[in-house]
């Protein structure tokens, strides 16, 4: 595994934002398509062990989407939102809601910039309705065991002040 690229994630204490920056070895146009073409999107958005199925995916300004992920135990996790603004290939503004926490909606603004050598940079700014919502979202993954290396960390966090 040659990790030449990593995602940068910033979440300031007390602010309801999460910022992600990531570069790709592909043009903005192709990365944009990977976000807005349902078939391609379904292939990378969910972890391997989850099957992602697209309910509907009307990728245009004013359109909406819904997809769900099911794990091996048959648990279903649904997500839906609206494509508020899609400007190919530079800007995607959409809402996002996890149906397990209804009513807690985030607004994500993704910007794509072409870089030299056929690469591009993706910047995603997510705005939550409250700091608590953001923190709940960040925390949500801590228990799903996706990162074995973090199970020990989970345990420690479960014991306050361990």
């Amino acid at each position: 595994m040659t990790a030449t690229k990593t995602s940068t994630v910033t979440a300031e204490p007390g602010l309801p934002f999460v910022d992600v920056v990531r570069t790709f070895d592909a043009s903005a146009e192709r990365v944009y398509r990977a976000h807005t073409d349902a078939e391609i999107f379904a292939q990378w958005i969910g972890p391997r062990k989850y099957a992602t199925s697209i309910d509907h995916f009307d990728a245009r300004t004013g359109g909406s989407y819904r997809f769900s992920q099911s794990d091996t135990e048959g648990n279903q996790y649904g997500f839906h939102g609206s494509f508020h603004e899609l400007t190919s290939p530079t800007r995607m503004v959409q809402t996002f809601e996890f149906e397990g926490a209804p009513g807690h909606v985030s607004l994500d603004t993704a910007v794509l910039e072409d870089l030299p050598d056929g690469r591009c940079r993706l910047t995603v700014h997510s705005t939550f309705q409250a700091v608590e919502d953001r923190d709940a979202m960040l925390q949500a993954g801590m228990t799903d065991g996706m990162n074995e290396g973090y199970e020990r960390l989970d345990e420690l966090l479960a014991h306050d002040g361990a």
Partner: protein
Amino acid sequence: MGDTAVETTADEDRLNRAFAALSDPLRRKLVARLARGDATVNELAAPFAVTVQAVSRHLKVLEDAGLITRSRDAQRRPCHLEPTAFGPLAAWIDDYRIRTEEKYQRLDALLSHQGVAAQDTEEGIQP
């Protein structure tokens, strides 16, 4: 920030020390490495172009700030990250970063196939 006004708690002191300790990029790299599991000084120094002594000094700073602990395991004194020292937010962010990175590595794999075929690709991306 404004929820508990002028109240410098022990927690805040600890956090200030933690932030000072993390102001150095190499120390941040050591912490990132320890987030993936305990490691000895030699193991930690291996990937970097610095001496074991230099890494030891950095570890001492992290230890004084309460960010890492070292077991008294006679031969092998592995360093251990104390995630609670960072507050839960830092641990959540790091975990989220790893999940985000896994997602984008799946996208990398798709993009590496010219033309982004809407085919099932066979890229085993091992985190």
